[in-house]
């Protein structure tokens, strides 16, 4: 082991290579090694708990058993050696969550990957998409998210929020690139499941076939577990299928990706309500070893105003959207009022319009800029003709003979209440008004329906009415019962549910394998580091995020056809190439500091490196000042900035972007490669009194010394001592 290499990192590399190379032919030895690798990775990431080291000790002992292979025994011996020699380093990683050599951060995930609740390796798959390798990109995505196509259409994309490119111009269009790759891979018949492990004899029951349940089922099936999903609805997808309208997420997309999961042997029992059609005791008797609850948050809050319970024309948004998703295409009314300001309200309004409503109004009690719905959704709704009534507090639903005639409201103003810096809507006395309506859809939020969950009597609920879990492992307070998704977080995002499902699958595997759970949610894993795409600085700066082509408004008002039509292939490849590859550059800023402060050159204008105070970035200015001295490259721990010599050119590249390119010069005497003329001038300025370039010739140091010596001998011969005196 090299002296300055972190032993934790060395252990991770050693085990990863051992497992990848197929050197462990014995399944038991492989299983032990995989578990040790998992625990060591968590130590490297600072996510390990106090039991991790002792668990590794116990696992190492497990290598020794009757008929154990020589490789197993050697692996155990090697690991034991590392641990006994460097135990305090492992301990220090756990206690301080720090790696003194910084080796353990070398594969640190990029901000986009860190931001993704499922931890998808974004830069790697963007790099693959840029090269046209869509199927490989999908393979990378599915390591962390089994529903790339779905997410490519409906993800809330926290990754784009953290995208470093946004500090230069606009974030990379990560979401749509994912959708393109998934569709293309599916179309090319190259969207495939990875190989799953053989059945390990254990079965997990997943309650709910929404994104969280499907995600857990997928990863458990890959790990060799038998998985049975209990689903109350007649269709898979949960909220994906029944709450997100088809113009945003076509049914076929969900069906195709769910079918891929079923192909792994996952069984889905539809129209089966847990606690009614099948009970906890029955499932236990059938041999279920662990439960995963992903029941979502399907119950709508009510407005609690007069008239709400009197008219059949008052609907809750989730039931309304569910009925439409299941085939009921009747118009809710001619004049529909949707109450709420979130994405569900927008979905209900746009769906009503498509079902034939003449006028649809969204009534929201706060102002437009406080609407929690996605800005794109709000803009699309406006384009389609949805009207908004802001600062509107519902008062009463009025009607006659069971038919709604109007929706009484009061105008509100936003006022800071005492002791709070939040603006609260307060009704303005006398400012009552009526919105003509024959249907009212309530979309003010959802909560978890705990019906049927009584059997989990050891499970605690939070004061918010959600299931209490340890977020690192998604374990509930009842042993062997795990939960994730909206049932844990309250109404949240698809990608959070997917990430929670993946985390829970991992935790269930650890629970059933008796290995300790992590202390904190796992930091995403970099599986590979693909070489970056080479591109000129000016091209990198001038590429722009493409505009999304949209379906025409008339069709959007009348059909459920997908509104966002997707990018064309050329735009996709270009957009993927805009990625800065933050998986390679950690943005430590050392290169800029050295160039500016140590060398006094200041050729790197990389304002985007600063998270809190980004300044201007311009890759194209480097070539004006850079002398290709290589100080930046020599001090880059990650080799993000490098000097390369090829085809007669010396290139300075930052994650593939060519910041400077100079023609290589050769010594006129001996023909060795010389530094750039600019660099030689820079050195000559510094060392002018020591050595000079003679006769404007291009010479290497050695030849120059030789020439100087010759000149000196000829012009200043050494005289005898006495003569000099």
């Amino acid at each position: 082991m090299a002296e300055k290499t972190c032993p934790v990192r060395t252990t991770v590399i050693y085990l990863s290579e051992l497992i990848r190379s197929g050197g462990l032919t014995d399944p038991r030895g492989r299983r032990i090694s995989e578990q040790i690798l998992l625990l060591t990775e968590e130590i490297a990431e600072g996510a390990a708990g106090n039991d991790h080291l002792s668990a590794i000790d116990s696992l190492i002992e497990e290598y020794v058993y009757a008929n154990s292979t020589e490789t197993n025994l050697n692996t155990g011996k090697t690991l034991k050696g590392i641990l006994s020699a460097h135990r305090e380093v492992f301990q220090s990683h756990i206690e301080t969550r720090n790696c003194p050599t910084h080796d353990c951060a070398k594969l640190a995930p990029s901000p986009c990957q860190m931001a993704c609740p499922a931890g998808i390796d974004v830069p790697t798959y963007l790099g693959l998409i840029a090269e046209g390798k869509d199927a490989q990109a999908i393979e990378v995505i599915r390591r962390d998210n089994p529903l790339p196509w779905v997410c490519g259409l409906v993800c809330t994309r926290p990754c784009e929020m953290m995208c470093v490119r946004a500090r230069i111009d606009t974030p990379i269009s990560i979401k749509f690139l994912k959708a393109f790759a998934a569709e293309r891979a599916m179309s090319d018949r190259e969207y495939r499941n990875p190989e799953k492990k053989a059945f390990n004899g254990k079965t997990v029951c997943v309650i709910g076939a929404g994104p969280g349940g499907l995600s857990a089922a997928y990863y458990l099936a890959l790990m060799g577990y038998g998985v049975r999903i209990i689903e109350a609805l007649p269709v898979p997808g949960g909220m994906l299928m029944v709450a997100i309208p088809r113009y945003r997420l076509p049914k076929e997309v969900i069906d195709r990706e769910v079918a891929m999961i079923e192909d792994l042997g996952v069984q889905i029992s539809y129209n089966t309500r847990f606690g009614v059609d099948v009970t906890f005791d029955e499932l236990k008797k059938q041999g279920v070893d662990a439960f995963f609850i992903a029941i979502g948050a399907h119950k709508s809050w009510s407005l609690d105003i007069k008239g709400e319970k009197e008219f059949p024309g008052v609907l809750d948004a989730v039931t309304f959207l569910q009925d439409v998703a299941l085939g009921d295409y009747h118009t809710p009314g001619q004049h529909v009022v949707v109450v709420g300001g979130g994405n569900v309200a927008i979905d209900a309004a746009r769906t009503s319009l498509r079902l034939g409503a003449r006028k649809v109004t969204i009534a929201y009690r706060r102002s437009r800029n406080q609407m929690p719905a996605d800005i794109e959704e709000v803009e699309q709704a406006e384009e389609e003709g949805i009207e908004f009534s802001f600062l509107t507090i519902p008062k009463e639903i009025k009607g006659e003979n069971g038919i709604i005639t109007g929706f009484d409201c009061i105008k509100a103003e936003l006022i800071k209440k005492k002791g709070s810096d939040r603006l609260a809507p307060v009704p303005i006395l006398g400012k009552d008004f009526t919105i003509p309506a024959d249907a009212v859809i309530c979309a003010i939020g959802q909560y978890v329906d705990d019906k049927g969950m009584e059997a989990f009597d050891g499970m605690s609920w939070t004061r918010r009415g959600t299931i209490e879990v340890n977020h690192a492992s998604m374990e509930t307070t009842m042993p062997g019962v795990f939960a994730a998704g909206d049932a844990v977080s309250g109404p949240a995002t698809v990608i959070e549910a997917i990430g929670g499902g993946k985390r829970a699958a991992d935790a269930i595997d650890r629970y059933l394998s008796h290995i300790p759970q992590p202390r904190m949610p796992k930091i995403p894993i970099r599986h590979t580091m693909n070489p970056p795409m080479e591109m000129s600085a000016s091209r990198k700066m001038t590429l722009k995020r493409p505009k999304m082509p949209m379906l025409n408004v008339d069709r959007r008002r009348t059909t459920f056809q997908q509104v966002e039509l997707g990018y064309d292939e050329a735009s996709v490849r270009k957009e993927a190439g805009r990625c800065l590859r933050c998986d390679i550059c950690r943005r430590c800023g050392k290169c800029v500091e050295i160039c500016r402060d140590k060398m006094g050159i200041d050729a790197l204008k990389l304002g985007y490196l600063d998270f809190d105070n980004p300044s201007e970035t311009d890759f194209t200015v480097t070539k004006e000042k850079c002398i290709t001295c290589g100080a930046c490259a020599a001090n880059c721990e990650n080799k993000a900035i490098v000097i390369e010599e090829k085809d007669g050119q010396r290139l300075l590249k930052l994650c593939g972007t060519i910041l400077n390119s100079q023609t290589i010069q050769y010594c006129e005497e001996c023909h060795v490669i010389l530094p750039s003329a600019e660099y030689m001038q820079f050195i000559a300025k510094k060392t002018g009194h020591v050595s000079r370039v003679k006769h404007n010739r291009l010479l290497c140091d050695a030849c120059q010394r030789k020439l100087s010596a010759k000149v000196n001998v000829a012009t200043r011969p050494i005289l005898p001592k006495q003569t000099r005196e």
Partner: protein
Amino acid sequence: MQFQKGNKIEVYKASTDEAWEPYMNDFIGLHGFITDPDTTINDPDALIEVSLEGKGTHRLPQDCLRLIGHP
């Protein structure tokens, strides 16, 4: 609603909320963005999704966050 999507925030203290878990103490002092605010009822008590630099995306109580920039 105090926090909106895209707001730049700081986790400036530990929360007293039951949803605050010990590992979240590692987040104090970190900066990040609001990625999914309370999307429905503007409840100051709701947990909101925050992406923190170097620590990933988490759902946190609002009392531990303060605004340091607008979208």
